[in-house]
């Protein structure tokens, strides 16, 4: 998204010189008229944007700097200013840092596996075969469906004792998940959540990779073939470098997606199963997005949740900036 924003702004800047670029009284009145019309057309969009997208960013900071009483719904009246107390508390909150760690773990699992599956599907589809369109639709469809539903279906599949996957594991002699199910087993809960999510989302990356691969000139492959390059060599030194922009995009989108991860955790594990870390019970899938939800929705600590989401914003911006560095350096 960040990349998208930057480029299009540059584009709109260059298209600024329009038909009426020469100044003059007649032009000025025309510009005034056009401006009035334009804002009339923009009004509904801008009003909603201002109230529900722009103002909340600042209002959230206001909330983060105040103590919001848990029992009061009237959050505009009588808020106690506590300055950076919420942030200070956050920095000593083990559960929060644990959630950041789990979010990074989640990203570290889902980004590479998502890229690998998407790219593999794209390579499979990049062949002259019948039914390619049907396969493409089949792979893409889960991407448009609801994460909550997908999560609920997977909890059924992963169920202890009787879940279909648990039974399949058992039938090949793996009994480790029988008692608690994959989602209840500490080491496998996060990978299981990631697996469900990768299968759901792979179609999106697949389309991106496919169109990038189809843009590669066949002449490159022909030349490599004449030089005796193996299929693997052709993939390594032609395909992979030329789809790099898509890979970078997938890394950014995947990481930011991990920072926002919520529905999958809500549907499948509610942040658990718990692991004992230095006498504290911490969830093996306790990601930051879920912690924000829990703080806000379950505990109704608006100020603290707002502070947390500000840290989330900070992390997102850092990731975008770091990635942009990489992008301009390597592509």
């Amino acid at each position, binding site marked *: 998204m960040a990349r998208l924003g930057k480029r299009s702004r540059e584009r709109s800047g260059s*298209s600024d010189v329009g038909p009426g670029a020469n100044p003059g009284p007649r032009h000025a009145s025309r510009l005034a008229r056009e401006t009035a019309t334009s804002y009339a057309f923009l009004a509904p969009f801008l009003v909603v944007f201002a109230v529900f997208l722009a103002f909340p960013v600042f209002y959230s900071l206001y909330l983060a700097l105040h103590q919001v009483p848990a029992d009061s719904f009237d959050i505009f009246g009588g808020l106690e200013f506590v300055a950076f107390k919420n942030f200070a508390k956050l920095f000593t909150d083990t559960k929060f840092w644990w959630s950041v760690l789990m979010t990074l773990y989640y990203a570290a699992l889902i980004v590479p596996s998502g890229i690998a599956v998407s790219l593999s599907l794209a390579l499979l589809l990049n062949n002259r*075969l019948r039914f390619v369109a049907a396969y493409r639709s089949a792979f893409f469809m889960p991407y448009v469906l609801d994460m909550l539903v997908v999560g609920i279906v997977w909890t059924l599949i992963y169920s202890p004792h009787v879940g279909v996957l648990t039974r399949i594991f058992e039938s090949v002699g793996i009994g480790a998940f029988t008692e608690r199910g994959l989602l209840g087993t500490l080491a496998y809960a996060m990978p299981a959540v990631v697996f469900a999510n990768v299968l759901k989302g792979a179609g999106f990356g697949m389309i991106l990779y496919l169109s990038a691969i189809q843009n590669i000139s066949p002449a490159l492959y022909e030349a490599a073939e004449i030089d005796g390059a193996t299929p693997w060599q052709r993939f390594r030194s032609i395909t992979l470098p030329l789809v790099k922009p898509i890979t970078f995009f997938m890394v950014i989108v995947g990481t930011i997606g991990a920072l926002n991860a919520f529905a999958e955790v809500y549907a499948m594990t509610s942040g658990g199963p718990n692991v004992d870390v230095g006498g504290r019970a911490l969830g093996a899938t306790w990601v930051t997005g879920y912690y924000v939800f829990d703080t806000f929705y379950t505990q109704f600590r608006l100020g603290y949740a707002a502070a947390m989401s500000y840290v989330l914003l900070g992390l997102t911006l850092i990731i975008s900036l770091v990635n942009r560095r990489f992008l301009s350096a390597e592509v």
Partner: protein
Amino acid sequence: MLRRVLLYVCLTAAAVVVLFPFFWMVVTAFKQPGQAFTPEVFPSNPTLENFRRVLSDYGFAKYFLNSVFVATSAALFATLFATMAGYVFAKKQFVGRDKVFGILLLSLMIPGMMYVVPQFAIINRLGWMNTYKAMIVPHLANVFGLFLMRQYMMTIPSELLEAAKIDGAGEWQVFRTIMVPLSIPIIATLFLLTFQFHWNNFLWQLIVTNVERLYTVPVGLAMFKSAHEELYTLKMAGSCISVLPIAALFFFAQRYFIEGMTMGALKG
């Protein structure tokens, strides 16, 4: 030849894995109530009982209508607003244009989780808790949609608009009779994408409603999830009802979905 067979085998295996959860959801929904975990793949005596119970006894018929209403009206207005805004950003010179556009695009960098708390507080302050408008209005400014609109509309020749104006058409008339008809593909795309977004916008709908009469399908499903831990056949019937409309839309209009969803990444 062998290579082709191998490719088909791989593709089919991948499709089976990717679609398995949905297959399992449907199969389980047709099993006898309470028999979710029978090992058979196809239920030996399939039943519609789960659907009947979920729809009538557990209120999913009402949740479904709520979802239809919320997603349709939200998609309608979000698309209209984005079309109007996209038109002026694509075709008009006006004071502050690039600054406003820059600010709008900047908002795309902000993670969605960021908005949950303050938006809830605003809705609460406005006294909109437990209303349809609380579910709809906050998401009517779709910046990504506006961006898609503008990109598309910039390819429509300005001469057409000038010609209509010379013929005496007013601003709104130009928009309605020229811009809109020529932008139908992107309007359809955005409508579908926003419909899909609102149909699946579970977190927000959960936050602003706590009365059963306003539940949407996903919210109903979430409540169901915690309340009836054992009744997986019913849950799967509810899940089927939840994904069916989007799956159907995708089946008939997949080109719009796929192009719309990947356009930003590919052309941006």
